[in-house]
C-alpha cells in the first residue's frame, strides 16, 4: 500500500507541476493574443434595415448567384444572448455552412436594450420588429414568402409569428426551442414557475443580463465555475485552443439586458401558465393558435440540452398544424448545436438540405 501510495503521489505531484507549467505557458499565449485574434461574426454581411436598436443583416452569398436559393431565410436568435454564436469562428460557423449550401441568409440582431426599451413587449418584438423585417425581405427579394429559422427563444417568437402571419412564411425551422413549459426537467423551468417576476421587472425596468447569467451558472456550478477553467488550464498552452476558449467565453457573458415587459410576459404567460401550447396565449389581442402553422416544419432538438430540455422542445411537433413536419434530434447540448463537430458535419448540412427541399 505504501509503495502504491508513494508512486501515486509522485505521479500526481508531477501532474500538478505539469499543470501549472501549462498554465504559465498559457499565460504567455494570452499575452500574445490580440482582440483581432478573437473576433467572431466575421462573415461578410450588409446592414439592410434597422428599427430602434434592432438590425437586420443580409449575408453575402458564398456560392454562384444562380445557385443561391430563391427563397430567403431569416434567422431569429434569442433575446438573452447574441446572434453571432451562429458565426462564432470561421471553422465553426453554422451560417457559413448554410451559405455554402446556397441558402440566402438574413439575421436579426436584437441589439442591447437599455432602460428606454423597458416597455417593449413581445407584441412589439414579434408583430412590429419581426414583421417589419419580414416585410423588408419580402419586398426586396421579390418572394411572397420567406423561410424562418428560430433559435431557442427566437424559435418561440418565430413559431408565434408564423401562427399569426402564415401567409408570409414558406417553411419554419425551430432549433432548441421551448414551446411546452409544463415540464420541470430543466432547472430554469422549475425555478421560473414560482419566480416573482413582477418584482424583478419592477425593480430593474430592463433586467440585467448579468443576473440572468448567474442563474445559468447555477445550473452546473462545479462544471461551469471550477472545472471549465481547470480544463482550460490544462490546454491553454495550445494557442488555437486558447483562442477558441476565449472567443466562447466572450460570447457566454455577452448577455444583453432584457426589456422588462417582454420578460414579464414570457415568464408569466409561458413559463408559469404555459399558455402557448394550451392555445390561450394572446398577442396584440389575438389568440395564437399553433395549429395555424401549416407550412413545412422542422424541429431540431438537442438530446443533452440542460437549458431547453426535450420535454419542452419536442411537443411543438404535435402542436403545429403542418402536414409536412420532421423532427431531427442530435446527441449534443444546447450550445453544442452550434459549435460542436456534429454541428458542422451533420446539423447545419441537414437543416440546409431540408430547407432546400422545401423551398421549391
Amino acid at each position, binding site marked *: 500500500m505504501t509503495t502504491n501510495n508513494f508512486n501515486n503521489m509522485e505521479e500526481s505531484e508531477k501532474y500538478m507541476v505539469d499543470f501549472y507549467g501549462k498554465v504559465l505557458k498559457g499565460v504567455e499565449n494570452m499575452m500574445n493574443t490580440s482582440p483581432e485574434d478573437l473576433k467572431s461574426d466575421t462573415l461578410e454581411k450588409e446592414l439592410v434595415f434597422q428599427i430602434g436598436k434592432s438590425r437586420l443583416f443580409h449575408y453575402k452569398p458564398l456560392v454562384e448567384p444562380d445557385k443561391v436559393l430563391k427563397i430567403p431565410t431569416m434567422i431569429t436568435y434569442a433575446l438573452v444572448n447574441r446572434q453571432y454564436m451562429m458565426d462564432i469562428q470561421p471553422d465553426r460557423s453554422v451560417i457559413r455552412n448554410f451559405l455554402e449550401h446556397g441558402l440566402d441568409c438574413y439575421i436579426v440582431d436584437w441589439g442591447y436594450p437599455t432602460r428606454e426599451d*423597458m416597455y417593449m413587449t413581445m407584441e412589439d418584438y414579434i408583430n412590429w420588429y419581426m414583421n417589419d423585417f419580414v416585410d423588408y425581405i419580402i419586398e426586396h427579394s421579390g418572394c411572397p414568402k420567406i423561410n424562418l429559422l428560430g433559435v431557442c427563444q427566437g424559435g418561440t417568437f418565430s413559431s408565434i409569428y408564423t401562427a399569426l402571419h402564415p401567409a408570409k412564411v414558406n417553411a419554419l425551422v425551430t432549433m432548441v426551442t421551448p414551446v411546452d413549459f409544463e415540464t420541470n426537467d430543466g432547472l430554469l423551468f422549475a425555478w421560473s414557475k414560482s419566480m416573482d417576476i413582477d418584482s424583478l421587472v419592477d425593480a430593474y425596468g430592463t433586467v440585467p443580463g448579468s443576473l440572468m447569467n448567474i442563474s445559468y451558472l447555477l445550473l452546473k456550478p462545479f462544471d461551469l465555475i471550477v472545472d471549465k477553467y481547470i480544463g482550460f488550464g490544462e490546454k491553454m498552452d495550445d494557442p488555437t485552443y486558447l483562442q477558441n476558449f476565449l472567443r466562447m467565453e466572450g460570447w457566454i457573458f455577452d448577455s444583453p439586458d432584457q426589456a422588462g415587459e417582454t420578460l414579464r410576459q414570457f415568464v408569466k404567460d409561458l413559463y408559469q401558465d404555459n399558455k402557448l401550447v394550451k392555445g390561450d396565449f394572446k398577442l396584440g389581442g389575438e389568440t395564437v393558435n399553433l395549429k395555424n402553422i401549416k407550412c413545412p416544419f422542422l424541429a431540431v432538438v438537442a438530446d443533452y440540452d440542460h437549458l431547453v430540455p426535450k420535454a419542452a422542445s419536442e411537443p411543438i411537433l404535435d402542436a403545429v398544424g403542418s402536414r409536412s413536419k420532421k423532427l431531427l434530434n442530435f446527441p449534443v447540448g444546447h450550445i453544442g448545436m452550434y459549435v460542436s463537430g456534429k454541428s458542422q458535419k451533420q446539423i447545419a448540412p441537414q437543416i440546409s438540405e431540408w430547407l432546400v427541399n422545401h423551398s421549391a
Partner: protein
Amino acid sequence: MPGYDDYFKMGKDFQDNLMKQYKEGLESIGKLYGMTDVMENFAKASGMDEKNNPVNAWYEAVKAYSPGEGSYDAYSKMMNYTWKTFQDQMTKFPELMKTWGAADMGSNFSMPTMMDIMSRMSESSAIYNQVFNFWKDFQDSMPLDTPEKIKAFTKKSEDLIAENVKTMMSTMLPPQFADLGGSYATLFENMNGTFKSFASPWLPDQAAMTDIIRRMMEGDSEAYSDYIRYVSDAYTNSFGKIFNLVGIGVNREDTEQQAQTLDSYMRLMFSYTELVSLILKIARKTSEALTQDYAAAMTDGSEPMDFKKFYSMWLKTNEQAFENFFASAEFTKAFNQFASDASQFKIKSDKLMEKMLAQIPVPTNTEMKSLYKTVYDLRKEVAALQKQVQELEKKAAAK
C-alpha cells in the same frame, strides 16, 4: 377589568421573564460546553442588556401613548428610536446600493477581459490546489481505520467545501454579498450582527432557541436553517410589524418609506442567509458522504486513486448533489424568496434615493420612466403612421 397599566405590567413581566430565561439558557449552555465567556459575549452582542433593549423604549412609548397622555410625544419618541436604529443601518446603504445597482452587478459580468479570465482561472486553480492538498493529506493518512480519523477527515472535507463554496460565490456575486456566507461561522456571525438590534429581545420561545443553539454547537447542519427561520419569524412578529405601522404627522410618508426600506433590507438579509445555510448544508452532507465512501473503499484494500481520478470523483459527486438540491422545492422556494426580497429592497431603496435626489436638480427614476413611456408610445405611433403613409403611397403609385 384590567387597565392599561395592568396590561403594560403583564407585557413587561413577560419580557423580563423571557430575557431572564434567555440569559439563563445561554449561561447553562456556556457551562455545559465550558464556554461561559463566549455565551456572555453572545448575550451582550444580541442586545440583551437593559440599556440597549428596544423593547423597553417601545413599551415606554406605548405607555405614554394612551389617550390624553401626550400622544404626540410618545409617538415621536417611538419613531425617534426607530429612526436612530434605521440611521445605524443607513450607514451601510451606500455599499448596499452599490451591490444592488444594476450597473454594478453588470460590471461583474460584462465582456470578460484577459484579467477577468485570469482571475477566474486563479480562483479555480485555488480550488484545484485545495482539492489536491486534501487528497495528498488523505493519502498520507491512510488507512482511515478509526472513527476518530474519519471524523477528522470529514471535518477537513467540510472545511474544504465551505472554502470552495465561498470562492464559487465570489465568482457569481458582488463581493459585498459573497463575503456574507463562506462558512457556518461567518454566516452565523453576520446573521447575528444583522438581527441583534431587532429580533432577539422578542424571541417567543426561549426553550426552542436554546435547543437550536445547542444543536448548532453540536454540529447539526439543519440547526442553522432552523435558527435563521426562527429569528426571521421573531422579527416578522416584532419589528417587522413596527416598520410597517401606519405613520402619522407631517412627515408620515417619509417615515413610512424609511421604515419599510429597512424592513425590506432585513427580509433580504434573512432570505439570503437562509439560502446560504441551505447551500452549506448540502455541501457538508456531500463532503461527509464523499470522505466516508473514499475511506471505506481504501480500507477494503482497493488501489488508491491518483489525484485526477479523485478530483473527477469529487467534482461529479458535488455536481450531482447540487444538481439534485437545485431541483428541489426547498431550494426553489429559498432562491425565489431571495430574488423577490432583493427586488423589493431595490424598489424601496430606489424610491428612498429619489427622495434624497429630489433636493438637487437631476431627473429622478420616476421622471425618466415616464419619459421612456412617452418616447415608447410616440415611437409606436410614428411607426404606425409611417406604415399608413407607405400604404397610401403604394396605392397612389398603383393608380
